[in-house]
């Protein structure tokens, strides 16, 4: 885990706890996000992502603990937090009879932008989120992808240094996801600190500097994707295919003792081992020397999904 001490984090959660009756939705969560970083918040449904984000967005209060945005406490100075934070919730606004441009203008006004500055902000946001062509449309006539972009536009119209996005990629088509990823990258390049959640690790792996995995309200791991990967990956798996005598290979491997979980999988044999690539090279040599006619020998590290499944393993009901 990278414990780089940031003296001036933009987002900071300190022993955050939120209880709903008997349910501990967020349980002692601590992490921080530095300026210009994208932080991925990953966990299955019901893990407590939305609850944590709503507390950060000053929409809910923690049972104990506190969180800070740009140095201001979300519990004590919500008014100051609000002007520095853009929140993109996991639902859409449903106001009737309002055009895209008017909608953004309304939020720009509500955040206290005046005159030319406001017009500039609205225009910038519309071009950033590629809503230029839709300015005269009412917001309830937009498609899901457009609504999501409008949601992002609303969250960034006052140019906040911190942005919080709750599952922004949920329900988007692949093209829209790529667009979203580019936008998030650009916002981070502009120096914004971004906290983005998802229940799919791979969705975030590429764009996040750091990820945290949360399950049943508890943080299970924090670090870069590689760090989590490396720390968790203790076993490699190997898949071998031989021309004949697959059964014999299985017995031979089991007899060796350094391979476990040997399984026959059609014409393939799969196994797990604790070693590294050296061990695999030795293994291949030994198999060939033992007289098996190998046609395929592949090794693969666990995928991110596998890591994620194992990290959260046993906790999912």
């Amino acid at each position, binding site marked *: 885990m990278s414990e780089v001490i940031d003296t001036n984090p933009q987002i900071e959660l300190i022993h955050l706890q939120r209880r709903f009756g008997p349910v501990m939705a967020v349980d002692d969560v601590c992490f921080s996000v530095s300026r210009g970083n994208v932080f991925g918040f990953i966990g299955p449904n019901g893990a407590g992502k939305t609850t944590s984000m709503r507390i950060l967005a000053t929409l809910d209060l923690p049972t104990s603990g506190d969180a800070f945005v740009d140095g201001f*406490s979300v519990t004590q100075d919500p008014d100051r937090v609000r002007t520095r934070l853009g929140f993109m919730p996991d639902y859409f606004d449903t106001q009737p009879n309002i055009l895209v441009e008017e909608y953004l203008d309304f939020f720009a006004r509500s955040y206290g932008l005046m005159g030319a500055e406001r017009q500039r902000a609205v225009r910038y946001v519309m071009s950033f989120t590629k809503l230029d062509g839709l300015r005269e449309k009412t917001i309830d006539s937009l498609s899901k992808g457009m609504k999501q972009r409008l949601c992002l536009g609303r969250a960034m119209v006052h*140019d906040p240094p911190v942005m919080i996005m709750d599952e922004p990629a949920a329900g988007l088509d692949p093209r829209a996801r790529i667009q979203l990823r580019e936008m998030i990258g650009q916002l981070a390049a502009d120096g914004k600190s971004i906290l983005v959640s998802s229940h799919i690790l791979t969705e975030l792996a590429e764009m996040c500097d750091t990820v945290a995995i949360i399950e049943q309200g508890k943080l299970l791991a924090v670090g870069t994707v590689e760090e989590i990967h490396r720390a968790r990956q203790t076993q490699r798996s190997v898949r071998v295919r031989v021309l004949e005598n697959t059964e014999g290979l299985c017995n031979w491997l089991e007899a060796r003792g350094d391979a476990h979980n040997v399984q026959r999988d059609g014409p393939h044999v799969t196994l797990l081992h604790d070693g590294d690539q050296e061990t695999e090279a030795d293994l291949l040599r030994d198999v060939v020397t033992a007289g098996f006619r190998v046609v395929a020998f592949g090794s693969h590290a666990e995928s991110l999904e596998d890591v994620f499944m194992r990290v959260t393993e046993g906790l999912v009901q």
Partner: protein
Amino acid sequence: MSSLDEPLAAGEPAELADVLPGTKWARFEEWLGHLSDRLNPILVKEARQSLRSRQFAMTFFLMLIAGWVWSILGLALLGPGAYYSAAGQSMFFVYYMILAAPLLIVIPYSAYHSLAIERQDRTYELVSITALDATGILLGKLSGIGLQRMVYLSALFPCLAFTYLLRGLNLFTVLLVVVYTCLLSLFLSQVGLFFAAVAPPQRKPIVQGVVLAALLCFVFFVDISMMSAFMRFDAVDDPEFWEVNLSFAVLYLNAFAILFLCARTQLTTVNQNRSTALRIALAVAQLSAVGWFAAAVLRWGDRHVIYGLIFLSTAAWFLVGMFIVGESPALSPRVRRDLPKSIPGRIMLSWLAPGPASGYLFVLGNMIMMAVMAVVMTTPIFEELRNFSGASSISNPPPSRRIVPSGEALEACIVAVSYIAIYLGVGKLILGAMRRYDEIKPAMRIAVLMLLLGVGAGAPWIIQLSNPATRNLGYTPLQITNAVWTMWEYCAEGSRPPGAGPVLVTMLPIIALCVWALNLPGLARELRQARAPTPPRVMEDEAELAARAAVSTEPSSPWDD
């Protein structure tokens, strides 16, 4: 502002201002822009939305059509006589009903509905996390609704103006009626917003909606009958007319402020100070009531006036106290930041700081102030003032209805203050104990205090009824715990309860003192909470904001340069 300051301007489309540089028109446009910057964002948004709303357009045209239909129908019915007889009044009255229905029912309900729906479908959440605070949102809603009121009014304005041509009405009366109705509509809109603010946001607030609708219809019918009476009697010529108006204006302002602040409290996060402003408004309302009743005593000298003041104040403070004594005793760091710096300041102003013990003191302080004033109103000094002001000559009451003897009023006051001290004090102790297990919701506060009051009233009743010897007696000293009956005996019957006076005025204050003493540890605990230091980051930000405000005080209007 990193991303916004980029050279976007290069791609900006040519605005009207660029095409017509320096013309009057461009300056006017710019001025309009500045004007709209000053407006509440919600007002601007709702104005745009309602222009596009079909329901709004339909209501408007319905009113327009109804006005014209009645104009033609009414004239046809009244015939040429309309211009000679006093038929103007009936013409106007129908117009008035066409106007009052949307103003007093539709508009307040839509104020309620719009906030309730936004809270339910979470549009409100998105607005609440902007720089608009609860005050800004409520004012925005009120002004958005005010705009609709203006539009409805203008739809019917030609018809109202037309009645002026008819006999039997003067323009001033018409104007007054319209102004009263608009003020009432504004007040009811605030009531609607209050209902929406107290409704839990997750569920569809059906109960609140039904209660509000019933209330609005009731007010509508009362208003219609009062206005019809008002139009028939030329009240304007009455010398007391403006005095009555003034006192109603004071009442109106107080009630409006209290409702507004209650709604604001509901919409503000718990760590902010949600009590002080409301408490000040309540104290001002009590002071106004005392002034109002004092004026009434000067004028009419009726004993019912003084007892009315005592009874109503006691009931009101019990009601308010229910909520206040259930407040959380732990002050948030945010609130503690703003506590007075000095110890004497802390002690002097403690009754305005949030918290149940300080609130208990606050209610008692107000009750005692009211009691002192009520007793003063019965003293010879006040009687002198009464004679001196010449008020007595206007309407001299018969001797039987003259001022209460001071002693009797004093007794009633002692009993009233004691009851408040006892019931709220015990309620506060119970709620404080319950708070250890769970948060105390407002409904719980009402339940506990009402239960206490009910037990106090019910227990002696049961004892008295179960004994055949006492069954048929009226008030007995046993009823000492029955605050409602006791206060009723004093105030409505206008005398101390038969045979119980001495017991009441000795026992109740003693019990009250005991309950008060039991609450002292809680008060000490509340007062001991130290002032919290302002976090350095907040001070930094305040300095930054102050610096920015100093820069932006330069003239910004194009007319100023």
